[in-house]
């Protein structure tokens, strides 16, 4: 029997949305308050969904310890309490939450192998969230 398991994590980071290819005015028009030169921050919530057959020995899709460890090492330690704009992942990429979702998915896809990475979801605030499934349609 195949099941999907989702685990939720929280990290805090700052960012500024500013595209170098746009003029100052275009940036202000496009990003509004998010273009403030001093940046601003969010408490991001990350939900990681993995899937796989439920083991008849353990009753689990995969051991939670392995997901927690991979997310802590690869995502939380990299992004928590950081300014996203200063990180190499966003050297040439505007740190919108759309882009952050793709970056986080790709990092986990490469580093976590204990189960199939199905999709991730990031809440930037309680009012908006983003899902990415590696180009596939996120499952609802």
């Amino acid at each position: 029997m195949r099941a999907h398991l989702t685990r939720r994590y929280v990290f805090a980071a700052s960012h500024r949305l500013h595209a170098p290819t746009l003029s100052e005015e275009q940036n202000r028009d496009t990003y509004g308050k998010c273009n403030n030169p001093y940046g601003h921050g969010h408490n991001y919530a990350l939900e990681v969904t993995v899937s796989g057959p439920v083991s008849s020995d353990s009753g689990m899709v995969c051991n939670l310890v392995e997901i927690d460890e991979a997310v802590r090492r690869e995502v939380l330690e990299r992004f928590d309490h950081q300014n996203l704009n200063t990180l190499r992942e966003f050297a040439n990429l505007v740190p919108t939450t759309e882009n952050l979702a793709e970056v986080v998915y790709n990092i986990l896809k490469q580093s976590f192998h204990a189960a199939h990475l199905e999709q991730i979801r990031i809440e930037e605030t309680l009012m908006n969230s983003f899902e990415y499934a590696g180009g596939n349609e996120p499952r609802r």
Partner: protein
Amino acid sequence: MIYLTRKCEFSASHYYHNSQWSEEENRRVFGKCANLNGHGHNYTLEVTVKGRVDPTTGFVVDLKQLKDILNREVVDAMDHRHLNKEVPEFAARIPTTENIAIAIWQRLEQRLQVAKLHRVRLYEMPDLYVDFYGEA
């Protein structure tokens, strides 16, 4: 196709233990959950059904009927109970969140008449949930 989700809660205790394994192996795989005295959770269940809207009633499913099925099959059977000792599915299966979601699916699927079961989502804690779509 319209999807409808109904939510309910139950509190239960359980432990994780595979009798084929040594105590050491159980502790290594299951950690704190292997404590044979058990521990408990407040589970939140979200059941999503799908179907066409009946042109007469405007319903996908009779909510009262769905609530009765959930109460009988899940809440009465699992709320304030010890899953390993009191729910027959877990006499031989470990009551992980994965297996509880599967057991709930199997209980509900055979009771639902008009609407089709789409997803069972079971939260063990606010930061951990399992989805089961009936996949083999």
